[in-house]
């Protein structure tokens, strides 16, 4: 089966979620990947949405993190203060799945503002749940399309913290950035290209990165999406 680069990215992201673990699901691409994981190899993956849905089991992609199908299928439905205070904050959730408007080589994320905060060039949506997801989940996976507009040498604003200094946090922070080109993992705290999707050249990844991207000597290739993965993904997307 042929597939798009977005499909490869989503499949690669879904694969990192182990069955039986819990995942705090951010809006957008992460939600698609997490739902794909549950539809394929991880039927007992516990999906947790900031709207208060714990153990949601949607059979289609939710329209938002507060879609009614999440509430209807959840094992437990709690208030928004409770989801942050009792569930996210104590570090009991295995993986936080985040998107990003901009990120840097340390996995810091900016979803707040481009340009000066007081006089912005582009005002982005802001923090939402991200700062505390990045701080408190046992580890974080970032799912984002790779481009020079997104992968920056220096961020205008740090909305959620990467690998810079984890001493204040119980969680390990971002452990993986999964893109439409490949996978980056931290090596000595700096996100390094460790894996390429089939048919992607190293030069493409370097080209799409705003910092001087380091490339692992043991560069792996992502196995292409299986027919089952693609079928499940397309069924989810409706």
């Amino acid at each position: 089966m042929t597939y798009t680069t977005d499909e490869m990215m989503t499949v690669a992201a879904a694969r990192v979620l182990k069955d039986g673990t819990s995942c705090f699901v951010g809006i957008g691409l992460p939600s698609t990947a997490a739902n794909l994981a549950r539809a394929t190899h991880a039927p007992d993956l516990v999906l947790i949405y900031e709207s208060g849905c714990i153990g949601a089991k949607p059979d289609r992609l939710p329209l938002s993190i507060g879609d009614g199908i999440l509430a209807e299928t959840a094992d437990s439905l709690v208030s928004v203060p409770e989801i942050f205070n009792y569930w996210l904050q104590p570090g009991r959730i295995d993986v936080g799945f985040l998107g990003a408007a901009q990120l840097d080589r340390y996995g810091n994320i900016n979803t707040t503002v481009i340009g000066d905060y007081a006089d912005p060039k582009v005002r982005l949506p802001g923090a939402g749940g991200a700062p505390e997801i990045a701080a408190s989940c046992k580890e974080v996976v970032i799912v984002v399309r790779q481009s020079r507009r997104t992968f920056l040498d220096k961020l205008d604003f740090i909305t959620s913290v990467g690998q810079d200094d984890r001493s204040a946090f119980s969680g390990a922070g971002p452990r993986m950035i999964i893109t439409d080109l490949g996978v980056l993992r931290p090596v000595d705290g700096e996100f390094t290209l460790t894996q390429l999707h089939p048919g992607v050249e190293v030069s493409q990844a370097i080209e799409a990165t705003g910092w001087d991207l380091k490339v692992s000597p043991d560069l792996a290739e992502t196995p292409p999406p299986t027919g089952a993965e693609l079928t499940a993904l397309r069924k989810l997307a409706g």
Partner: protein
Amino acid sequence: MASITSLAEAVADLVHDGDQVALEGFTHLIPFAAGHEIIRQGRKGLTLVRMTPDLIYDQLIGAGCARKLIFSWGGNPGVGSLHRFRDAVQHSWPVPLEIEEHSHAGMANRYVAGASGLPFAVLRGYTGTDLPRQTDTIKPITCPFTGETLTAVPALNPDVAIIHAQRADRKGNVQLWGITGVQKEAVLAAKRSLVTVEEIVDELEPRPNAVTLPSWVVTRVAEVPQGAHPSYAHDYYVRDNEYYKAWDGIGRDREEFQRWLEEVVR
């Protein structure tokens, strides 16, 4: 005890120019009809409070009702940006918009403190981010037992909280279910409250995952069927996703937006 009136009367009585107003509803049960009534009544200088400003605040901001926004995520969920919000922040159109920006965890805890009669809440949050540099309602606090440094945020106690619920009984007891967000906290934190409901019924039979707000903590109830459209009301109607998508086009252009305002709201 809550009194039951029309929406127009409730907004006229409870929402005044310059008030701090929280319209809450986390993706679900967003009180759009009440927001439009505030626009129709031409309120000015409001401090709008809401975790996820969403289309409803894009509309209020574009209509010039707000002078300040206290929030944690201002997007069109599942679609993209809020263009009226952007235009206000980037170009002060139609009026300048001051912002006070938090994370979801911080905003949720600010409501919790407000509902609890405490001046502040404590959380693990914001550490290492640039938010504390921009937002002076984020401060460090030290645990008196362990010496650990955590984050404090001040209580939110809006002048008015406005929410939408599935139903109320004739005494003004309110029941909502599905995703209930921070609505209980917003109502309990506020000085006054207005609840619009899909219907007023004789009896509120118990339901799983329902929040019941007794009449004596609610100021006004107004029956407004479809009052959360284009968001959804669990067990009543689903989200009008086309509206959210169409908004991207309407909100993107000042003239388009003003035409919408005149034709649809005013």
